[in-house]
């Protein structure tokens, strides 16, 4: 018994850590089925009505719609701009390289409250009213660095022999990029986009500073938390969890199936 315990201690520890990680997620999901009134605090009984009517609470779907729109635009801009920087850093040598690396690192080493407060102070000084587009601008700003880091890691892990082979077969620089490099880097770009979207969708602090009267899903949760978050917010939180999990798992299955197919061919 003690031998078994000492052999498996780390596995038990890991299992406990996973339980700890998932307790609030399970709680959020369970309370999305709560037959509650406005205050979703005490278990009142099981119901599907919140799932059938996720927009039932006032403002919740407007806020969700804004979060999705902002997340989509921020992801698009940040992924394009960040991927370009990642290629410059990963594929070229140029002057000002370490300054560029520093400029990419600094936003990640700055607390969100400083990023949010400084940007709002500038907007106010310029007489710009914060709203939808100032939020998009802010989100692109803090997502770029994460995109650069993710895509750069993927570029660095590529086997340079593959690109050499393309050049040996008389592919032009552009063809090599289009037909060899880009498809190989694509999973990294997709991961970066997913990361950017989830960072943007879940951001509260920077958004709260720069969005003015525009409501987002995290802002909705924050404001309603004073009175008790409606069960519809739990429905949306749980649905986002399930959708994201489905995307990640199907991507994993797809890539491992592809790897198996490639192994069979050789």
């Amino acid at each position, binding site marked *: 018994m003690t031998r078994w315990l000492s052999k498996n201690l780390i596995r038990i520890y890991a299992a406990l850590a996973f339980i700890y990680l998932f307790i609030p997620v399970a709680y959020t999901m369970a309370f999305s089925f709560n037959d509650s009134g406005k205050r979703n605090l005490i278990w009142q009984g099981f119901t599907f009505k919140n799932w059938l009517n996720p927009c039932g609470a006032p403002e919740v779907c407007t806020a969700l719609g804004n979060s999705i729109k902002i997340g989509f635009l921020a992801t698009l801009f940040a992924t394009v701009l960040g991927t370009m920087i990642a290629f410059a850093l990963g594929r070229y040598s140029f002057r000002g390289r370490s300054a560029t690396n520093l400029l990419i690192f600094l936003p990640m080493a700055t607390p969100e409250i400083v*990023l949010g407060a400084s940007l709002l102070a500038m907007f106010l000084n310029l007489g710009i009213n914060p709203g939808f587009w100032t939020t998009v601008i802010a989100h692109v700003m803090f997502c770029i660095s994460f995109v650069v880091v993710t895509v750069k890691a993927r570029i660095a892990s590529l086997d340079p022999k593959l690109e050499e082979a393309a050049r040996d077969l008389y592919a032009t620089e552009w063809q090599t990029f289009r037909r060899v490099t880009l498809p190989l880097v694509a999973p990294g770009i997709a991961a970066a986009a997913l990361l950017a979207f989830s960072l943007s969708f879940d951001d509260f602090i920077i958004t709260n500073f720069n969005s003015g009267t525009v409501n987002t899903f995290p802002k909705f949760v924050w404001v309603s938390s004073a009175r008790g978050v409606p069960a519809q917010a*739990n429905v949306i*939180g749980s649905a986002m969890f399930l959708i994201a999990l489905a995307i990640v798992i199907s991507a994993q299955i797809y890539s491992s199936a592809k790897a198996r197919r490639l192994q069979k061919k050789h």
Partner: protein
Amino acid sequence: MAFAHAGTATASKPGRAGMRIPYLLLLPGLLWLFMFFILPLINLAETSTKTAVAGGETGSYEQTFRLQNYVDAFSENSAQFSRSFIYALLSTLLALAISYPLAYAIAFKSGKYKNILLVLVIAPFFTSFLLRTIAWKQILGAEGPVISVLRTLHLIGADTSITATAFAVVTGMTYNFLPFMTLPIYASLERIDPRLMEASGDLYANGLTTFRRVTFPLSMPGVVAGTLLTFIPAAGDYVNAQILGNPTTKMIGNVIDSRFFRIVDYPTAAALSFTLMAAILILVTVYIRRAGTDELV
């Protein structure tokens, strides 16, 4: 197809046009960061030394280069400052204690379930962190299951609470930033060549010695990255203190937030933001230096 374009291959040798490519790739993104990260910081520095216009309306300030703003801001809020750093340090250490064995188990003991377990580490992220923090508040709160169980067992008194305490704030931050700690540690453990650990065993080192002298030192880059990714957001956080804390657990983030929105005292908020950022950057630099030299030992 490839042969048809063979002639153009020579033209793409890095010439004058080729030299410009990296700068063209960098320009839009770096311009964005310059306009919406660097310029706001410069503007913030400028705001931090302003003073209120005498007889002006609330929120109007003029530049008087008053450095005393910094002294005032710090001395009025030194308790919140030290609390921010103590809470951040405690939650970073707790997160490290939870994450390291977890990352170790995933890297070395999970076999074919490795990828699934990695997804599970990130998965809680997919539910809004505010919802999860509020869930903790309700789980640990006065009407929640933990308190009622402890009460029926007579382990705590009728008026003891877990929420609205410093303990709740620190554990809330630990929870929120846990994946930021686990993933980098996992990444550096995963890169370790298993032959190094075998070699250590061949040289009669026991498991503990192998861990202490081989595995742990090699995982240091992950530990450094993880502690930074946890400590930095934790020091500036105010969401956990707001939801899980009470007025005596206010952190510097709460002060900056209320100076900005409730009191419209931009100069103090700016001075506090700058002091926070400077303190974090100094700590981070010292820490990276120390960790860097420790690695060489």
